[in-house]
């Protein structure tokens, strides 16, 4: 015994619906880090593949300073073929993309951009849906499948934990050791210059293959390196605009 809906009512409701749809469209502005007001610093990392010897110290320092579950690695060192018979490696932290797929897809805004370009995780907000893992082209994200309550084998040899352990059930990732940057800046240090204000992996690298600094500062090491050398970024074709640059391996510059 329903009254049938007449055309006018239908149009009325449809118009409201269309308006709502328009509103959601308006809200769906592209979510790139350009939307976030850029701060005075834009942190980037430059990795010189001619210098990387694949020792994995960076990974160990990362595990210790960020107190990472041994099942998880934020920072991996991959074999990347050879040049002139010499093995080359590719260390892979989080790319801190300027147009990060993970930030785009997160249903709860647990991934977000900092004004300095770092892609951050809010571990208190993450619901553990793992959509970001699916969306990341660099496999830079790891899920906490298991509670990590044991001892960290990398501590104390490779450093002391500086951040809280992540709970089970959330996705975690590298954030350029933001805690070191922030504390360093507060102490008047210069990230990329002073070790205490620089990501642990950069400090730990025995060959100086990793360089960290501010792209907004034309005199920073990273700005100079990128000006003087040919560089590339991983999967640039995807349009993610990574903040990690690589200087391709040059056999002549390599030792051994």
């Amino acid at each position, binding site marked *: *015994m*329903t*009254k*049938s*809906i007449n055309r006018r*009512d*239908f149009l009325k*409701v*449809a118009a409201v*619906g269309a308006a*709502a*749809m328009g509103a*959601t469209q308006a*809200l*769906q*502005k592209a*979510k790139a880090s350009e939307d976030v007001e850029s701060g005075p610093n834009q942190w980037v990392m430059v990795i010189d593949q001619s210098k990387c010897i694949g020792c994995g110290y960076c990974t160990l320092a990362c595990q210790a300073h960020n107190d990472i579950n041994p099942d998880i690695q934020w920072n991996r060192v*991959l074999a*990347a*073929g050879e040049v002139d018979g010499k093995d080359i490696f*590719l260390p*892979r932290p989080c790319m801190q993309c300027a147009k990060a*797929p993970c930030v*785009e*897809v*997160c*249903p*709860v*805004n*647990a991934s977000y951009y900092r004004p300095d370009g770092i892609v951050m995780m809010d571990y208190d*907000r*993450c*619901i*553990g*849906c*793992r*959509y970001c893992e*699916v*969306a*990341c*082209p660099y*496999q830079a*994200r790891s*899920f*906490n*499948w*298991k*509670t990590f309550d044991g001892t960290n084998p990398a501590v104390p040899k490779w450093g002391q934990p500086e951040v809280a352990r992540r*709970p*089970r*059930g*959330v*996705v975690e990732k590298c954030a350029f050791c933001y805690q070191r940057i922030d504390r360093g800046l507060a102490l008047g240090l210069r990230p990329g210059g002073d070790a205490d204000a620089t990501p642990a992996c950069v400090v730990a690298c025995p060959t100086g293959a990793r360089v960290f600094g501010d792209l907004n500062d034309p005199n920073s090491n990273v700005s100079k390196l990128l000006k003087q050398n040919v560089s*590339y970024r*991983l*999967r640039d074709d*995807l*349009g993610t605009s990574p903040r990690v640059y*690589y200087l*391709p391996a040059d056999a002549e510059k390599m030792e051994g």
Partner: protein
Amino acid sequence: MLKNLKTKLSSLKITPWTMWLGFLGLLLVAALIGGIAVFWNGLWITNLTDLVPWGLWITIDLSSIALSAGAFTLCAAVYLIGLRRYQPIARTATFVGLIGYTMAMLSLLLDIGRPDRFWHALVYWNEHSLLWEVTMCVVLYLTVLVFESMPIFAGFDWLKKRRPKLAAWMSHLHHYAPYLAIAGLFLSMLHQSSLGATYGVIKARPFWFKPEMSVLFMYSAIVGGISLTLFASMLSARLTSKARINDGLIERVSYFVAWALVGYLYFRFWDTLAQNYTYQPGRTEGLQLVTSGPLAFNFWFGEILLGTLVPMILLLTHATRRHPFWRMVALGLVVGGVVAYRWDTNISGLLMVISYLPGQPTVAYTSYRPSLIEFITGAGVIAYGLLAFSLGVKYLRVVDHRYAEEEETEKVAVKSVEHVVA
């Protein structure tokens, strides 16, 4: 007390109905234990990995939502297009939808790492995320479904006796059916498509990355959702006298399903064929995985032959469509085809691991097989759906094609309906 229970138990007769309930009860108890194990231990006891973080549960979630699409489609047909004679089928579909969406919620609750934070998407909005959009729409649409189902629950004898006023109010909500149908249409079209787009926008997975993903999800959901409603109605009518169907009505809707399948086949054909051209790392391997790799059987038999072609022919052919058995087979196959499509879609994009090393990306393969605990809990979610539907058929007359006509002629008055039910 215990003695009382004993005598009560011994007086229970073993009937197919109690056996069915017992069987579902066993599945539910096993799933409950499994679910507690998952919440207690965390997701490491599943076979999900960082490379394949979405598996069986997501497939159940996607399938439940897709197969609930009969609700919005048929409600729109009845209340907006004005095909009033299908109202009793829409009624069943609404109930199926309510069950389907709660099933989806259950499997998602298992799947997310922090089920205690399930409400975050409602509070912390990322309007750009398709998963946020899906979550919001699903929650809102579930609300719509609850209101749409109120008149069904109003028919529950117990409620009518105990709370006649409440039952009358719930029954009265039927008057708002057209408005609810509009809301349902709007929300469903959004999230059914968005679920496809959830996959379709992921550039890191080239086999998913295509605009037609949302269209295909939406389309297959409509076909599969209607089919499930019809199938469940026919099956209920065969098994119990509590369910009464108008076979002619079901046949007509089945004929619509037949032609919808023709359209579906057309879309799938071009979707698959177009991807055959040029080599694109990831996409080409994905297609191979589906058409000649480990998923080939699922694809060719599950999705195309049994899921689309056979039911299409069975339902287009007058003789088999008229024949209740063959019609049921066809509708059941469509449902299976949609589930196979959801499984294949999810897993095909995840099984390929595309390198990010410089140069042309190379593609490696990983594997995934659901663990026992995933099967047990997944079966429990399905058992819950079957139980809810069975109870609905028995106590709420959710499959009763005489219902609307009676309501129509008796001019409601909740009390008089009580006599009809009795």
